[in-house]
Each structure stands twice: as structure tokens, then as C-alpha cells.
């Protein structure tokens, strides 16, 4: 299926995610983040955070519900049988703490072909309840052999 570059810039509905303390702990345990600031409120406060703070890569947890509709968008038309998650970038701003409500909006950043493969690049921008950006994600999927 030929890439439809007219879809570059397409945006998807923003998705809210309320950050819970036990979810941060569950995620921190799964990735081996033992720093007490990700587990214990007093340790987090002593380090200058409002509450238990999410590890940076917790971004995938609150971004996932926003990026999924982009990945599965029939108008974009990724062939999942030959798709691999080729690359990922996050650029962090404000820390994310327990109790924050994070709003994430996904968009199509680029669509291109290179060396016979199709590249699908999506962007997510996540902001907190104060309107401050917390992270900007770039998600690159590659469909091998187009």
C-alpha cells in the first residue's frame, strides 16, 4: 500500500490519564527502578517532588492510550504483519507525579520510504493539569518491504 503523505499532520483526540501511586510503583518494579522517590512519598518529597514521581519511561504508560488510535488508524494503513517498532524518542520537561492528570495528543509527524521500507513517524505531546509540557514522544514504526 502506497504511503498517503497527505495524512502528515493528522491529529487524534487528546486522552487524559490520571497518575496513580500504585501504578508508578508497579511500573518501577517491572523496570527495576529501585530509587525510593518512585516508591515512597516522603522520599519523593525530601527530594523536592510533590509526591511519588514517575520514572521517565513511565511516559509509555500515559501515552499508550493516545498513540494506539494512530497506530491502528486504517487511513494510515500500516501492515502489522511486517511492522516493527524501529525507534523511540522521549524529550522530558516537567516531572510527572502521583495525582497529576496528563493529557496526551498524538499526530502523524512523517511518512516516508527509504531503502524499500516504509517509515511511519508519530508524535505525542503530553501536558499536565497546569498546561505544562511533560514529555514529547517520537514513535517510529517500520514496515519492512513496504
Amino acid at each position, binding site marked *: 500500500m502506497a504511503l498517503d503523505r497527505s495524512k502528515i499532520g493528522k491529529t487524534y483526540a487528546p486522552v487524559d490519564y490520571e497518575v496513580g501511586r500504585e*501504578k508508578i510503583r*508497579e*511500573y518501577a*518494579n*517491572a*523496570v*527495576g*527502578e529501585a*530509587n525510593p*522517590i518512585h516508591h515512597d512519598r516522603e522520599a519523593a518529597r525530601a*527530594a523536592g517532588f510533590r509526591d511519588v*514521581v514517575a*520514572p*521517565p*519511561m513511565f511516559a*509509555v*504508560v500515559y501515552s*499508550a*492510550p493516545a498513540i494506539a488510535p494512530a497506530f491502528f488508524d486504517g487511513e494510515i494503513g500500516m501492515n502489522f504483519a511486517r511492522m*516493527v*517498532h*524501529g*525507534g*523511540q*524518542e*522521549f*524529550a*522530558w520537561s516537567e*516531572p510527572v507525579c502521583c495525582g497529576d492528570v496528563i493529557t496526551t495528543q498524538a499526530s502523524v509527524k512523517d511518512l516516508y520510504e527509504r531503502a524499500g521500507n516504509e517509515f511511519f513517524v508519530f508524535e505525542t505531546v503530553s501536558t499536565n493539569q497546569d498546561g505544562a509540557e511533560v514529555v514529547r514522544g*517520537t514513535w517510529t514504526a517500520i514496515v519492512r518491504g513496504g
Partner: protein
Amino acid sequence: MQAGDAIPELKVTPDRWLPHRYAGASGDFNPIHIDPEFAKNTAGLPGNILHGLWTMAQVARAATQAGGGDPRRLRRLSVQFRGMGFPEKEITVSGTVSRVEDDGTVVVDLVAEQDGKQIVRNAEAEIAAG
């Protein structure tokens, strides 16, 4: 830290059930990560494979530790996923400082290897001055 300096290596061995715990933590229940039979018989893989974003989280841990353990100093991390990671085999994340910006930001090139193969490559982290 100066250009050319190695950062401390991070070694981690995901246990057999780690992909299940990460699936629950992340919400990614793709059966290629948690169902060995599906991975082999339907997806044609050697076995169930690690979530790439879990492996990226190990690269993030190594970069955070290089910055003294304060997650606020990790400003950016980009990775390329290549190859597949598997449970029950040790992963080593290593890195080298590629440059130091005028504002003190340290840029580190990282790689995650398992069984001598790179499973995350061309990773680049920006660590803000402490």
C-alpha cells in the same frame, strides 16, 4: 564527565515472568511478549521476546544513574530497536560520553547487548548539568 568517558555499565537479567509483569505495568499484552507458543508457532520467533520499551527503560536507568540518579537530569533519550531480546539472559547496557554542550549538558551514546548482539543501538541520551 568528558567526551570519551565510559559510564558505569548496567547489567540486568530479566526473569522468565518479567514480560508478564511488564505487560501488566505497561498495558502492552501483545502475545509475542508473553505467550511462547504463539511467539513460536504463529509469529515464527524463537520464543517470547522482551518488550522493546522495557529494554529502553534499562537504557534510561543506565543514563539516569550516569547523571547521579536524579531523573530530572535525563532530558532526552532516543533509541533504535534492532534484533530481539529474550528473558533469562543477561543484558548489558554500556555507554560513552560523546560530547559536553556549552551549558554542561552531557550527551551519551549507549547500546544494550544480549548474547553479543545489540538489541538497542544508536541510543543517545542528554543529561543536564547537575
